[in-house]
């Protein structure tokens, strides 16, 4: 929640500086590409940008949202601020707590029974990086969809917003599939839940050290 708070506070500041910048598509696109470059995204470790996320097409704002037609950016649906969460919600900081991940070591286990932290223990550092990045993407798309959802609740016939929602639904679906195939199920409803063992209860849970 702290991250969300920071994100929103910091975005509010961004908004004041950039009120004239209505081309949020370019901003988003640039943000994502910049992040990907700076953070050295390893394509081989999980993020196939072309199939998985297709930033360039998916985020093409030219087809997305015409600000002047019905979307009040400042009050109704400030997507630009929302999308800036990538800069403010650096999940990687949270990842740097991995020292304490081994529950078996820290819990004073006596019976030697597996704590079922299995997936977490087997993941390589590179996989964790990829998973953290993918989860970050999911959080971004989900938040965009939530904001669009809320806007549509009171503007149900806004075709631009509907199209926008569809587009991000598809992007979220792809990102979820990619995440779940590599990093484990996000919910018991996942298509990737039915492996040879029930991985749903494996750590880390979102509040635990090493969570994505």
């Amino acid at each position, binding site marked *: 929640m702290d991250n969300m708070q920071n994100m929103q506070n910091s975005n509010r500041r961004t908004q004041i500086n950039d009120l004239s910048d209505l081309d949020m598509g370019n901003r988003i696109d640039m943000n994502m590409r910049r992040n990907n470059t700076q953070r050295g995204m390893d394509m081989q470790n999980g993020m196939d940008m072309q199939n998985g996320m297709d930033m360039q097409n998916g985020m093409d704002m030219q087809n997305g949202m015409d600000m002047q037609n019905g979307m009040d950016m400042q009050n109704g649906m400030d997507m630009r601020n929302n999308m800036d969460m990538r800069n403010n919600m650096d999940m990687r900081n949270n990842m740097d707590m991995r020292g304490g991940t081994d*529950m078996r070591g*820290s*819990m*004073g*286990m*006596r*019976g030697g*029974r597996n*704590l*079922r*932290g299995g997936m977490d223990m087997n993941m390589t550092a590179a996989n964790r990086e990829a998973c953290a990045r993918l989860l970050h993407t999911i959080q971004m798309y*989900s938040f965009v969809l939530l904001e669009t959802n809320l806007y549509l609740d009171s503007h149900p016939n806004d075709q631009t917003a509907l199209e926008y929602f569809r587009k991000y639904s598809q992007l979220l679906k792809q990102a979820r599939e990619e995440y779940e195939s590599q990093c484990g199920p996000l*919910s*018991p409803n996942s298509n990737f839940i039915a492996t040879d063992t029930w991985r*749903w*209860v*494996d*750590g880390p*849970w979102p*509040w635990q050290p090493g969570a994505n």
Partner: protein
Amino acid sequence: MWLYEKRLQYPVKIKNPNPALASLIISQLGGPHGELGAATRYLSQRYSMPFNDVIGILTDVGTEELAHVEMISTIIHQLTRNINVEDIKDTNFAPYFIDHTTGIYPIAASGVPFSAETLASTGDALADIHEDLAAEQKARLSYDNILRMIDDPDVCDPIRFLREREVVHYQRFAEALRNIQERLDHRNFYGYNPEFDRGRT
């Protein structure tokens, strides 16, 4: 995080209103053994729980309890729709009506509003799971008592479903307790609190 699905876990289709009955069943929303307390109890206990499979049980049961909150609220709503003041005046629903009309408000059958004092989150795996086992039995007996009071099959049916879920949850928590105890010191599993005394062996 949570996502909402626009459906009940089990169908509730009550044809005949019965505000007096609503004022009894509402205890399973806001009473000491109610679903709101159950969801809050389990979902809050997860953070200190040191065993991931038990966290899974607390998450999944707690999530199901949220669905039960919706089912009980639906039962109350359907028992109090299409009624007029004459239907209420001489019933034990009248005091509730004064403050809440036919809105849904979490309250016990006794009239006491929902209180977090009806649940515990202790930061101790053994204490929490024992609390949960007792809570499921208390919810089960409350449903038993409700079933003693009613004969409308439209109401009995979902109430029986909810009662059965308490029994199933009890079984799962019993397994959670067994798993927790197996991982502690067999000779003295009250010797320490694994959530707090980390690193102690």
